[in-house]
């Protein structure tokens, strides 16, 4: 490196000298560059920012004059003469970027760079800037996946047997190897294969028997039709789609939240497959169902529910940088859509042009603009998904509207009343001073208390500072004695004050003790005191001068809170008060008014309660999206950083497959409708190829393209490109009917081949790419579960509806219970059922077109020890004991039931020996047959489709 630099310097000077064009000061500048600048660049920058860098960082090169001036995605690194516009300097000062990352360079070095730039950044280094690669669309279109469909049927494929068109494509390639394929599978194997492939569950022994007994030529076709028409078809094929769209019942992430309504989308998908909804329509509903016209409530429900596709992703709602969160959601939507519907890893172009495929960063943000114009979240500290009401029948809607109106009206009245009451409250003090009252008034503070009373001033009105209550406890132990000495003889009314309330005691004993006389009056403290809302009269008494009168409030025998506030003795003859013995007029009026208002309020509130409890069923909710108020184009986020804004990009699609580019997006809309239309348009060959390949994948265990979610450069190439195109064309011609395609494929001879090892083919084609045989395939997690439930007779065939146990607040520790089909088991992003986890269920965090198939000890542990297996083995054993008469027959019955075939001679021998050993060791029949059944669940033939 050092040598090259010296050589470079020498040439630099020589060239300058020879040309004679270099002024003396420029020569000095060059020398300055060579002494002060270049060595620093070489030592501190070239490791990451030069052509020679092992890995170029930040798309920025600093090793030529042109490159350093062009800079990177953030702008020019050096602007000659403008230190303030030179990002390099910013970075060295650790102001924007922090470069070099190992530590800030000494100040004098930074000053050198400042001086160098200020003096014009003289730089003798030749060479071009980083090539702006861009995306070569013309070149890109030559890649197989972007070419238009071409379903040329191979010529000269003599049909040695009756084959379908599909077989002609397959045999054309086989002939190159001069090998014939396997013979057809036995009917016994074929029926099991067909059941698992079409409906996901095994046939019952009776179904197998019927099929084997049916000798008519169309027996197979009729079985295919029956399975295609069964509601279980959608349960199985819908699950394939749910894998691809990363369906889940929770958000995953740190505080994973439950999606209580996600199941509606799941049921929508199942229904769509059962009804064989045309795939182009299926796509449109999922991307833009909320924008599609509808003729019925039912259609509207369906279309709104479909948009759950966009909303069900693994979103980290608590991400605090909301601008980033918004973009993360868009990215996730694009990435899912790309892999699921186009087989393209669009997400790779978020930070830079796609490294392999002709997808530019501009393509990415063109599509991102569509989803940025779509609202998926309501932002808050922890953001929320958009929930939308599903429409209901018009009559019901009317009831809902009426109800809403009634509730609203009532609430307005209640609010008015409350406001009035509050107004009164704020005008009138809750407390009435004792000395503002006529007669002799003794407040609770002056009373003689027995037991521990609790002070309060919670409920107005009351005399003095507050009142006391007994906490509705210590009944019989508490009392309060009010004493007065009568100053003038006369006719007195004695009154007791309390604050009323519904929790008060309805029969409070108040004892009046005169000289030699005692009387008890019961007071109902639940009712507001009639006099001024403050006092209740205990009666009139003729009292003597100097006489001592006691009033004792007790809590014996009471139920409810007993209140003690004050007692008043009022001389009626003395006409002590001008206002009829009452507190001042306004206070009395206020009290009455308050009472009346409270009564009204109480009535209205109970009316509201009644109304609400009789509310019509509220509309169902779905997770959905809506249009942003102001749909608009997105800007490029430089290097994917949302806070690093680049140019705006007009909304659009992948240019490599929309050559005409004349798609107009409605100004006022996000563009999702147009997006859906483009995906299934003639000019895009990806959608039909990807779907046809998925169908093939599910019927053979591998696709014609073995990376079903990636048709790009880094994906695999199709083994049979013309066959793939043929299937794609057939798909489109059938009106995008998945069932028609499934029907055609399962009728091929290739599908029906035996899966046995093909000895000669195994050598030249170990991965069976040429399909000399059908593939042997391990059952998927749901199939294992459902097959166990079918065998044990416990499968619950309930169709659709919610799955998560009521009241579930979190997925953690969720108890997976019940015997519904696997597709109806809740799918959480962080918590899986044991069985699903060990048998490689699709990870709902990502698009899974092809599930993993692993072989692990944890699967064996599950089969050996899980309570689930033992339970169902035991159900099966019980049924064998109940319905089959001899042990020999039981043995055979179990093989038919669990493996769908007759046991082999050797199997019978081994089973009989095992059973014998168990019996000898003293195991019960029930335990012995359970152990046998469990082993059958664990054996290879149960786990594999042949």
């Amino acid at each position, binding site marked *: 490196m050092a040598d090259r630099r010296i050589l470079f310097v020498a040439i630099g000077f020589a060239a300058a000298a020879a040309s004679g064009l270099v002024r003396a000061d420029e020569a000095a500048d060059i020398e300055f560059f060579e002494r002060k600048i270049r060595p620093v660049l070489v030592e501190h920058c070239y490791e990451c920012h030069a052509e020679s860098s092992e*890995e170029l960082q930040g798309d920025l090169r600093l090793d030529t004059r042109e490159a350093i001036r062009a800079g990177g995605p953030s702008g020019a690194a050096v602007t000659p003469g403008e230190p303030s516009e030179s990002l390099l300097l910013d970075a060295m000062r650790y102001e924007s970027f922090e470069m070099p*990352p190992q*530590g800030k360079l000494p100040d004098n070095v930074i000053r050198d760079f400042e001086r160098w730039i200020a003096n014009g950044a003289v730089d003798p280094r030749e060479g071009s800037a980083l090539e702006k690669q861009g995306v070569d669309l013309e070149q890109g279109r030559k890649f197989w996946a972007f070419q238009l469909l071409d379903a040329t049927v191979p010529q000269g494929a003599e049909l040695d047997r009756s084959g379908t068109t599909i077989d002609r494509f397959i045999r054309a390639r086989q002939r190159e190897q001069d090998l014939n394929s396997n013979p057809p599978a036995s009917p016994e194997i074929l029926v099991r294969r067909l059941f698992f492939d079409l409906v996901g569950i095994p046939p019952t022994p009776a179904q197998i028997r019927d099929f084997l007994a049916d000798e008519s030529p169309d027996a197979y076709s009729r079985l295919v039709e029956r399975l295609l028409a069964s509601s279980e078809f959608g349960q199985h094929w819908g699950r394939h789609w749910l894998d691809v769209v990363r369906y889940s019942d929770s958000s995953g*992430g*740190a*505080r*994973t939240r439950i999606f209580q309504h996600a199941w509606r989308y799941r049921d929508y998908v199942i229904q769509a497959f059962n009804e064989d909804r045309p795939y182009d329509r299926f796509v449109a509903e999922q991307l833009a169902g909320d924008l599609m016209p509808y003729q019925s409530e039912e259609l509207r429900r369906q279309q709104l529910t479909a948009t759950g596709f966009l909303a069900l992703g693994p979103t*980290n709602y*608590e*991400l*605090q*940088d909301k601008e980033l969160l918004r973009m*993360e959601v868009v990215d996730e939507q694009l990435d899912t859509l790309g892999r699921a519907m186009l087989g393209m*890893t669009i997400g790779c172009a978020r930070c830079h042009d796609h*490294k*392999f495929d002709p997808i530019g960063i501009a393509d990415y943000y063109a599509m991102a603009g569509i989803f940025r114009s779509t609202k998926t979240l309501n932002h808050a500290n922890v953001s929320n998904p958009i929930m939308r009401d599903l429409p209901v029948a018009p009559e019901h809607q009317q009831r809902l509207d009426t109800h809403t109106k009634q509730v609203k009206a009532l609430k307005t009245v209640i609010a008015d009343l409350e406001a009035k009451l509050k107004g009164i409250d704020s005008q009138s003090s809750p407390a009435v001073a004792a000395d503002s009252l006529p007669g002799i008034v003794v407040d609770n503070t002056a009373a003689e208390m027995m037991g521990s009373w609790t002070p309060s001033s919670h409920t107005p009105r009351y005399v003095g500072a507050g009142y006391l209550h007994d906490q509705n406890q210590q009944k019989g132990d508490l009392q309060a004695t009010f004493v007065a000495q009568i100053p003038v003889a006369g006719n007195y009314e004695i009154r007791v004050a309390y604050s009323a309330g519904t929790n008060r005691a309805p029969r409070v004993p108040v004892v009046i003790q005169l000289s030699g006389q005692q009387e008890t009056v019961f007071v109902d403290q639940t009712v507001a005191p009639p006099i001024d809302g403050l006092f209740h009269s205990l009666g009139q008494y003729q009292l003597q001068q100097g006489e001592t009168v006691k009033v004792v409030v007790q809590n014996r025998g009471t139920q409810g809170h007993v209140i003690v506030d004050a007692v008043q003795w009022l001389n009626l003859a003395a006409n002590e008060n001008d206002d009829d013995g009452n507190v001042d007029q306004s206070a009395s009026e206020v009290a009455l008014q308050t009472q009346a208002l409270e009564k009204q309020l109480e009535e209205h509130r109970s009316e509201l309660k009644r109304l609400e409890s009789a509310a019509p069923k509220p509309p169902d909710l779905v997770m959905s999206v809506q249009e942003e108020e102001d749909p608009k184009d997105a800007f490029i986020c430089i290097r994917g950083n949302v806070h690093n804004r680049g140019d705006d990009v007009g909304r659009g699609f992948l240019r490599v497959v929309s050559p005409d580019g004349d798609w107009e997006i409605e100004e006022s809309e996000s563009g999702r409708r147009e997006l859906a239309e483009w995906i299934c348009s003639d000019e895009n060959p990806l959608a039909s190829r990807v779907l046809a390949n998925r169908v093939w994948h599910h019927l053979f265990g591998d696709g014609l393209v073995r990376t079903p979610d*990636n048709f*790009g450069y*880094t*994906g695999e190439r199709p083994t049979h490109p013309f066959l793939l195109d043929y299937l794609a064309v057939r798909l489109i011609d059938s009106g995008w009917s998945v069932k028609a395609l499934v029907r055609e494929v399962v009728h091929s001879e290739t599908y029906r081949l035996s899966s046995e*090892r093909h000895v000669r083919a195994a050598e030249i084609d170990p991965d069976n790419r040429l399909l000399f045989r059908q593939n042997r395939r391990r059952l998927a997690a749901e199939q294992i579960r459902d097959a166990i439930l079918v065998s044990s007779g416990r499968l619950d065939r309930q169709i659709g509806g919610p799955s998560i146990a009521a009241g579930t607040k979190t997925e*953690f*520790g969720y108890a997976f219970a019940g015997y519904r089909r696997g597709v109806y088991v809740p799918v959480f992003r*962080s*918590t899986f059922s*044991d069985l699903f986890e060990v048998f490689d269920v699709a*990870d709902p965090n*990502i698009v899974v077109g092809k599930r*993993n*198939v*692993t*072989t*692990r*000890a*944890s*699967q*064996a*542990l599950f*089969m*050996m*020890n899980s*309570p689930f297996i*033992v339970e169902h083995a035991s159900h099966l054993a019980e049924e064998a004991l109940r319905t089959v008469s001899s042990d020999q027959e039981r043995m055979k019955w179990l093989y038919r039931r669990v493996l769908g075939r007759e046991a*082999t001679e050797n*199997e019978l021998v*081994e*089973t009989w020996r*095992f059973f014998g050993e*168990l019996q000898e*060791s003293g195991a019960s029949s029930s*335990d012995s047959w359970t*152990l046998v059944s469990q*082993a*059958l669940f*664990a*054996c*290879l*033939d149960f*786990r*594999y489709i042949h």
Partner: protein
Amino acid sequence: MNRSSTSRRDMLRTTACGFGSLALAGLCRDSVAAPSMVAKDPHLPPKAKRVIFLFMQGGPSQIDTYDPKPRLDRDDGKQVEFHVARTRKITPERVFKSPWRFRQYGECGQPVSELFPHMAEHVDDYCVIRSMHTEGVAHGPATLFLHTGATNLVRPSMGAWVSYGLGTENQSLPGFVTISPPSTQGGPRLYSNAFLPTLYQGTAIGRAGTGISDGSIANLRNQRWQDDQQRKQLAFLNSLNRQQMLEPDDELEATISSFELAYRMQSEAPAVLDLSSESAATMAQYGIGEQETDEFGRQCLLARRMAESGVRYIQVNYADNTNNPRWDQHSRIKEHEKHARAIDQPVAGLLKDLKQRGLLEDTLVWWGGEFGRTPFAQGRDGRDHNPRGFTVWLAGGGVKPGMAYGQTDEFGYEAVENKVHMHDLHATLLHLMGLNHKQLTYRYDGRDFRLTDVAGRVVTDIIA
């Protein structure tokens, strides 16, 4: 029930392949078909064979533990402007000094606060990195970043990468275990294999919030059958499978041997999980039997037993399932004392034990949380999250002992010198295990992924 594990082990030893008298072809193979857990050759000469990661969930405070700052004492209570990570704004904040005193320990004289009297005794073994910084301000994203190198995207956990890169040394045990993992703040994603083959996912032993004494591996025990019955059943199953395998096939072979593997695991793992064979002195060394230290002591002792048995990546979680986990003292920083007491003696005991057994040389111990805490106050007496500067320490397995690396600013807030990003720490840990972080890649959907994404730098200065 006759379920003595000793007799099972004896049986395994005396019979060639485990299932009684049946000699089974292929049953003694070490592994299942590819992807495989067979120990693999590392990229570089490894300095460590295994990792024990002591995860301090919630974010322990660096300035109260290993990074003393006199400036905090001087300016305590003053308003100083900080660039606050959460708000991403520069605002005046109240400087809040550490309530704990620091003292120098060991030959190296590293300061440790009085929170960790036991751990301080091992300071000569530590390489304390004081200049850590990371991504994510909230627990969820930062915890995911710590484990997977990504705040939000679904990526494999570090232990899964290590298993993928190196395989396991013991075919009867998983290569990656996590002891008492939390179910929140990332939950299973913290030990997930993501797109790597499932084989490499972490095996959870117990879970946070329930005592580790009850912890086990899923379906490790049979509740129903006697051992004798189960052995007969497996022999029967094996004979069926042999007959059903009509042609040689790796996958079917692997399925058949998975039962043997499972049986070995079921036979051996409980013994590894069972602490009762440990001496009273060892138990005491870990603080087992003392109320405050019993739980984490058991977890640490279990980690040593796993390390001894050849588990490659062992994570011990000091964690719970709340939204304000363990070290997360937004208020009452004094609560750090409770957490310090719970881990101090167990961690010290573990280090001592590893050393005594000669295991520390090739075991890389890593202590740390998802981020640190702010030197300024939150509320009256708390500290907020701080991803801009914090401390972790490493010990054993090829790191320079008794050193401190990097520095934060004078308040202990922001890493300023020899900064070590979490990606860099990952790269360095992999390097010590003999893996080049740029070469440890996995192709998924058309792209090569790695733990360190497109970043990461091996911190060679701390490698012995």
